[in-house]
C-alpha cells in the first residue's frame, strides 16, 4: 500500500491544474496517474489555436496550453505516473492501478481528484441503419490518427454532428487534402462555437445542413456513401428529402459523455443531466474526500474554465487531505429552472474557504435577448443579459459566497425579455 495525500486520476488539463493547486495549498505528496504515454490529455491532439484566451490572454494551441501546466508540474516535482490504468477506487479511497512498469499497485489516498475527462458518443449509440463498413470514425479518433499518428482516415468525408471536434476536423481534413462534402446536424442549430462554424466551415464553403441527419450508411467493406435526409420539428426524417453523398468516410461528432465508471465504483452519485458527479462548490462529490473536475464532471466548451474549476478542486482536496474535511456544514441546493440544464455545482456550502462561488450551466434551448438569473424565492442574487443563449455555449458566473448566507436553496433560470425585469 502506497500512501499519498492527494491522488489525481488523469493528467489532462483538469488533473494537471488540480495537482498544481494541491501542491500550492501545501500538500507534499501529490501523485498523478495517467493511462496515456505522456501527460496533456486530449489537448495533445488539439493542434488548432484558440486555447488560453481567458487564462493567458493569448491564443495558444492545445499542446502549448498543456505544456504550460506540464512545465509547472515538473517544476513542482509532482510525479506523473504514465501508462497506468486505474482499475478501482473504493469509498475509503483505496485506489488500485495497473501498469507495465509497476504491475498492480494499491494506493491509499487522503483525497482523490477524479479528472478522467470524457469520451465520444459512438455510432452504436445512434442506431443509423445500414451496413457496418470501415470508414466510420468518431471525430476525436480521426483527430488522433491525423494529428498524432500521422495517418489519414479518408479522402471524401461527410461529418455527422456539428460539435466543435467535428467542425475542427472538417477544417483539418480539408487542410490535409481531403474533400469534406457536408456537415450534417440533426438540430436546427449547431452545438459548436460560432468561431468554429465561421473558420472551419464557412471559410472553405463546407455546407452546414441543419435539421438533417444521416439515415443510411452504404458500403460493404468500406463506406461508399451515405444517405442524408431532412427532418421535421419532431426530428423525424421527411420522406422524399433523400440526398446521396458519395464518400469513403463518415465522421461522428455527436456529443461527449463524461467517463465515470471509476466514479461509480467509488460510490459517487451521478447527475442524470450532466452525466458527471453531483458536487458542491468545492467540487467535492457525495463521497467525502473524493473530488471531480474537468470534463468528467460536465463537458466544457473552454479549457480555460476547466483549469479554474480544477484549481478549486485541487485546493479543496488539499484542505481535506491536510485537515480531514470541514465536517457537517449546511449545503444549499442549486436547481435548474426554466431554460437551464445541468447547473454545476448542485450544492453550495454555507462555509467554504474560497470567497467566490462559480456557477455554470448549459442553456436548454436557443433564447434571444434573454436574461438569466440566480434566484432564491423573491431574492435575485444575480442576473445578466445575453444577446443569445444557445446550448453550444455554456454560461458561467462567479458570485460572492456571502450572497448565499441564510438561503435554503437557489434556482438558476432563463427569463425571456418579454417578462420585464
Amino acid at each position: 500500500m502506497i500512501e499519498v495525500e492527494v491522488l489525481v486520476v488523469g493528467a489532462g488539463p483538469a488533473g494537471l491544474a488540480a495537482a498544481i493547486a494541491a501542491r500550492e495549498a501545501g500538500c507534499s505528496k501529490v501523485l498523478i496517474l495517467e493511462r496515456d504515454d505522456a501527460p496533456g490529455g486530449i489537448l495533445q491532439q488539439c493542434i488548432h489555436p484558440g486555447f488560453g484566451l481567458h487564462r493567458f490572454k493569448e491564443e495558444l494551441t492545445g499542446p502549448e496550453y498543456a505544456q504550460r501546466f506540464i512545465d509547472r508540474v515538473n517544476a513542482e516535482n509532482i510525479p506523473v505516473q504514465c501508462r497506468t490504468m486505474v482499475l478501482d477506487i473504493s469509498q475509503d479511497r483505496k485506489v488500485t492501478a495497473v501498469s507495465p512498469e509497476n504491475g498492480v499497485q494499491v494506493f491509499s489516498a487522503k483525497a482523490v481528484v477524479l479528472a478522467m475527462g470524457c469520451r465520444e458518443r459512438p455510432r452504436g449509440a445512434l442506431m443509423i441503419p445500414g451496413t457496418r463498413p470501415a470508414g466510420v470514425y468518431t471525430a476525436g479518433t480521426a483527430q488522433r490518427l491525423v494529428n498524432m499518428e500521422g495517418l489519414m482516415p479518408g479522402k471524401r468525408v461527410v461529418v455527422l454532428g456539428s460539435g466543435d471536434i467535428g467542425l475542427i476536423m472538417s477544417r483539418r481534413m480539408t487542410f490535409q487534402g481531403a474533400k469534406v462534402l457536408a456537415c450534417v446536424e440533426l438540430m436546427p442549430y449547431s452545438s459548436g462555437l460560432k468561431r468554429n462554424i465561421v473558420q472551419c466551415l464557412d471559410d472553405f464553403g463546407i455546407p452546414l445542413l441543419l435539421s438533417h441527419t444521416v439515415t443510411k450508411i452504404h458500403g460493404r467493406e468500406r463506406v461508399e456513401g451515405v444517405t442524408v435526409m431532412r427532418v421535421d420539428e419532431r426530428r423525424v426524417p421527411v420522406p422524399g428529402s433523400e440526398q446521396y453523398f458519395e464518400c469513403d468516410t463518415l465522421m461522428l461528432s455527436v456529443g461527449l459523455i463524461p467517463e465515470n465508471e471509476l466514479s461509480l465504483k467509488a460510490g459517487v452519485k451521478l447527475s442524470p443531466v450532466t452525466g458527471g458527479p453531483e458536487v458542491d462548490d468545492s467540487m467535492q462529490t457525495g463521497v467525502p474526500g473524493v473530488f471531480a473536475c474537468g470534463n468528467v464532471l460536465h463537458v466544457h466548451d473552454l479549457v480555460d474554465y476547466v483549469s479554474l474549476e480544477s484549481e478549486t478542486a485541487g485546493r479543496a482536496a488539499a484542505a481535506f487531505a491536510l485537515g480531514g474535511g470541514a465536517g457537517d456544514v449546511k449545503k444549499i441546493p442549486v436547481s435548474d429552472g426554466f431554460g437551464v440544464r445541468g447547473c454545476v455545482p448542485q450544492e453550495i456550502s454555507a462555509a467554504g474557504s474560497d470567497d467566490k462561488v462559480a456557477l455554470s450551466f448549459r442553456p436548454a434551448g436557443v433564447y434571444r435577448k434573454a436574461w438569466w438569473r440566480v434566484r432564491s424565492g423573491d431574492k435575485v442574487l444575480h442576473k445578466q443579459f445575453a444577446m443569445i443563449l444557445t446550448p453550444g455555449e455554456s454560461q458561467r458566473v462567479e458570485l460572492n459566497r456571502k450572497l448565499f448566507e441564510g438561503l435554503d436553496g437557489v434556482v438558476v433560470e432563463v427569463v425571456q425579455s418579454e417578462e420585464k425585469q
Partner: protein
Amino acid sequence: MICIGCPMGCVLTVSRDGNGELQVEGATCGRGKAYGIKEMTAPERTVTALVRVEGCRQPLCVKTAKPVPKGKIFEVLESIKAVTAVPPVNIGDVVIPDVCGTGVAVVATRYVRRG
C-alpha cells in the same frame, strides 16, 4: 457576419457610410469592431499544420506565429508540407522563417525529443 473574437459571437453588420468609411454595427467591444473591418478589408487566419519528423512517426504540429492572409492559407499549407523537421525540437523553434513572403514565421508547438 459573426464575430469570432470571443465566445459571445456577436452578429456584426459592416457597411459604408456617406463618407465611404466602414461602419460596424452589433459589436459589443472594440475587438469586434476591429474584427468587422479587418474581415472586410484584409481577413487573416492563424494556420496550424503538421510537419514530418525525421525518424519519427508522430508528426510535429506547427502554427504561423501570426495570422496570415486568408487567401494564402493553402499556399502556406503547401510550403509547410514540403518541410521535414529534425529532432530535437522545442516549442517556438522556427520551422520556416518567412512563409510565402508573408513575413510570418512557422513555429513548432510541441517538443520532440532526440530520436
